[in-house]
């Protein structure tokens, strides 16, 4: 711990700065033995309640960066802090609890097809050990927020792509995480639906949630006028 502390002191990160920072990448490099460096010396931070886009051509390292945040992969060098906690050095038993602090949204929705909308959205709460009444209340509220009230008993197959994505979003926010990370959330949606989803993200930002959206939809990003982190061949070129 002392080592970590001194390292942070060297980096001249003041305590108040850490408090304001939701997500911090500090000189992060990810190397795969087969392909070499996929991410090189990435440094950026997102403050509480900030919304940002992560963009870049395919293969630029967007997915790898998101995997590092989800602790699906570990970085080869550098430090990743989530709300002051070190993701890069987390022990295996700590990982589930760290993931409960993030809401992930995927391009392919990652819904359980044999469970109802209600059960899908309730999953993070069931895992976190919430009581039945609390689960019902929170799931209703989350579905209401994404405009899917009354569809609790439907199965994902019976919903349109946009609706399935909303179920994914409801699942991501139901546990009230301080950060939402979305991987190409509008990739499979038409522009109108995509704009709807983006407005939804903005509404989360307004209540203090940090939002990071990976997307290659340049026109949509341009419309939104938010911070853009651009990756190019594994390096951060803007943001």
């Amino acid at each position, binding site marked *: 711990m002392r080592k970590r502390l001194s390292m942070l002191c060297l980096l001249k990160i003041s305590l108040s700065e850490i408090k304001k920072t939701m997500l911090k990448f500090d000189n992060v490099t990810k190397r795969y033995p087969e392909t070499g460096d996929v991410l090189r010396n990435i440094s950026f931070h997102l403050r509480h309640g900030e919304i940002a886009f992560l963009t870049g051509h395919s293969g630029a390292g967007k997915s790898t960066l998101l995997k590092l945040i989800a602790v699906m992969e570990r970085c080869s060098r550098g430090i990743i802090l989530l709300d*002051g906690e070190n993701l890069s050095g987390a022990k295996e038993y700590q990982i589930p609890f760290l*993931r409960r602090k993030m809401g992930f949204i995927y391009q392919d929705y990652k819904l359980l097809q044999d469970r109802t909308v209600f059960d899908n959205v309730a999953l993070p709460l069931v895992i976190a050990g919430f009581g039945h009444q609390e689960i019902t209340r929170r799931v209703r509220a989350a579905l209401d927020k994404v405009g899917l009230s009354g569809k609790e008993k439907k199965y994902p197959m019976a919903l349109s792509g946009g609706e399935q994505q909303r179920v994914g979003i409801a699942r991501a926010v139901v546990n009230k995480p301080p950060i939402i990370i979305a991987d190409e959330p509008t990739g499979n949606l038409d522009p109108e639906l995509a704009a709807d989803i983006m407005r939804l993200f903005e509404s989360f930002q307004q209540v203090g949630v940090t939002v990071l959206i990976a997307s290659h939809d340049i026109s949509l990003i341009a419309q939104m006028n938010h911070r853009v982190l651009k990756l190019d061949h594994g390096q951060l070129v803007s943001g």
Partner: protein
Amino acid sequence: MKRINRRHQTQEVKQPRYAKPARQDAQRTTTAGGNFVDKLKAYRDLHAHALFSSLGRLVASPFNSVMTIAVLSIAISLASGFYLVLANLQQLTENLETSAQISLFLKDEVSETHAKQLADSIRQNPGIQSVKLITKEQALAEFKTYSGFGSAITVLKTNPLPIVIQVLPKDTLEDTRGLEDLLQSFQQSVEVDSAQLDMKWVERLQSIMAVSQCAATLLNLMLGFAVLFIAGNTIRLELQSRHEEVVIAKLVGATRAFIQRPFLYTGFWIGFISGVVAWFIVTVMMLILRQPVENLSGLYGGNFHLLFFGFGETLELIAISSALGVLGSWAVLMYQLQHTKPA
């Protein structure tokens, strides 16, 4: 305002967030949303849900479930069947006279009077407890009653059975050395055709029993391992078919215990149901065997009754098979979940 600021500052100094181990935070996250009783209820609900949903899954894929349970219950019924057969045989040997009785088969030419004299003279021996003379007629009558060859024996013109003197030595003589000496002295007497220490065949039978018991234990051990592996393999296949669900649960923060739980319950159900089915298989087999065995026992004049599983043994059988189901699943889950990406 001042107070708030001061508190804010002390919090910053006392609890630098970057230095706090993740576990503390993790615990805070898990205990969020409700008091302890609510948590306990939620935990109980989780178990109840896993218990019944895993049973539901077994019912939902009846073909696979029936195949697995059939294989398991045959293995378990083989093991428990062996156990029961041995218990029955043991009951048989326990009833046998294990005292060192010596049977003297007299030569054919020895007359009954001579035999009586011989018996009397043996009785005089201080080392002898009792002597019983079985005449040719008595032996024949006994043979007719108990052997089941009653009608066949009447065909014979002469009685082929010898006169037998059964000698029971005193307890003091029951060390092997004294018995052997006595046996030898009988063998050397001219009237005696052969002298047989009855204990020997009891001993032989008992050692055969010991060997079969040992073999049965080994066999049961093997069958136990088979049950472990079959249950484990079933869970492995189940885990494969639910791989996506496992990954999604992991990504939304499920611990390994949460992911394992429904699979362990599936293992429990497989073991439990197989145990119950095996009990039925063995009991039905014993019911089928009961009549013939009792007929056979009747022919030998025995009072032999087939043993079935007792209440305690039934519970033991079901508990062991359930435990094997859980253990097999657990071993596979330990290995497979370790190798499932993401961590």
